[in-house]
């Protein structure tokens, strides 16, 4: 479904992606792990065209991702994104945040979009916060609204960019539960995360990035319990033992 073929990307002089290739099949959950600066968030941002890439090719369902093409807006409606800092629209209520895309991008009738937004909010456990404003919610609640906002577009896949990194530890669980449910329903997900236990439990595949390359990838269980590469072993030792 998502095909990344040997992409390179530089910010000025610094080459942050040095030939990354990755194939994500429909229904698959892929976790990207690695130390900060390894390029995992950049890979994710290239997939929906928030960053451009210099070489190689990314395609979604055989359509090329090009930041500067007209097609990009349509591609983005098919691939949702959830951000580390939630990025909810602070001037709109929770339900309006979720309705925004369906109403203004997909031109769905308001009443119908609202009905579905409420259903999605119930699904993520926020049926009682429909009319609240983002500033009245905890981080974990805001992130679940952000997930509902992505789901409202009925995407084929959702990208998660460190969705729990900005949360207080006690709020992480609720967000992961929602993500676990999505994975169980067969949503295609690419998740940049530091939550190793989540990766182990939910991911079909884990990719370890280091220095702008995928150093090692494989089945979540085997990669996390028996990493082959020295860099991976070193990284996992650090994150698991703190």
């Amino acid at each position, binding site marked *: 479904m998502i095909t990344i073929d040997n992409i390179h990307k530089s910010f000025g002089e610094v080459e942050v992606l040095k030939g990354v290739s990755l194939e994500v099949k429909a229904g698959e959950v892929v976790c990207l792990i690695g130390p900060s600066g390894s390029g995992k968030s950049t890979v994710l941002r290239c997939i*929906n*065209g*928030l960053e451009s890439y210099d070489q190689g090719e990314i395609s979604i369902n055989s359509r090329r991702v090009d930041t500067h093409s007209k097609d990009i*807006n*349509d591609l*983005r*409606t098919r*691939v*949702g*994104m959830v*951000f580390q*800092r*939630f*990025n*909810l*629209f*602070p*001037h709109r209520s929770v339900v309006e945040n979720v309705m*925004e*895309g369906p109403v*203004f*991008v*997909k031109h769905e009738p308001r009443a119908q979009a609202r009905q579905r937004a409420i259903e999605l909010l119930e699904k993520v456990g926020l049926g009682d916060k429909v009319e609240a*404003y*983002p*500033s009245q919610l905890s*981080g974990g609640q805001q992130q679940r609204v*952000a997930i509902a*906002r*992505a789901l409202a*577009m009925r995407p084929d896949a959702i990208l998660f960019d460190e969705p729990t990194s900005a949360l207080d530890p006690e709020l992480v669980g609720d967000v992961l539960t929602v993500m676990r449910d999505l994975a169980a329903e067969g949503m295609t997900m690419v998740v940049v995360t530091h939550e190793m236990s989540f990766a182990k439990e939910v991911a079909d595949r884990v990719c370890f990035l280091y220095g702008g390359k995928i150093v090692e990838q494989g089945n979540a269980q085997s990669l996390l319990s028996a990493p082959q590469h020295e860099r991976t072993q070193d990284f996992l030792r650090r994150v698991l033992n703190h």
Partner: protein
Amino acid sequence: MDFADISAFFPILLKGAVITVQITIGSLLLSTVLGLILALMKLSPVKAFAVTAGTIVNVIRGLPIIVQLFYIYFVIPELGIQLSAFQAGVIGLGIAYSAYQAENFRAGIEAIDAGQIEAAKSIGMKSRLIMRRVVLPQAFRITLPPYGNTSVMILKDSSLASTITVAEMTRAGQLIAASTFQNTTVYTMLALMYLALSLPLIFGVNRLERYFGKGVKGAGK
């Protein structure tokens, strides 16, 4: 100061006050439109727009308002365009303040977190829709308090139009004072009448500031 003087002067000053308010509203509207255009030009990715707007803003800010008024009132007619003193006053103040408005608007738009734009993009919104639905509504809240302050300044600086013979409140006061020599009475009344116009505006701005400060704080956290 006696009561007969006050009641004789008041209607004349009040007539001036009406013109003061008209100039203020007229130049506020003009400066808003011009300021918004200049701000969007300044933020445009097209470099020629940004440079042009930047130059215009600097030239306007570098000139005294009174010189701009003289220029519009005395020089423009020589180019064959006839303007009444009132029109010249509104246009002059509107242009003079468009530079400050442009800076207010630009600051408001730039204060929007980049994550807001990314979130909007990632649900497939096009840049014009992002401007309309995400950036401008938030920039509006940020811009309101400085916008209010600018309106207070325009109200006060509308008195400069007296120098190009517009019969607004200050001019009315000058004329009464010159013919009656009741300087104390006239200028005290004038000052009080300006305060009667500006203080409610200032209080209104303060309230807005408090009201909108609440919503914006904690946004996106």
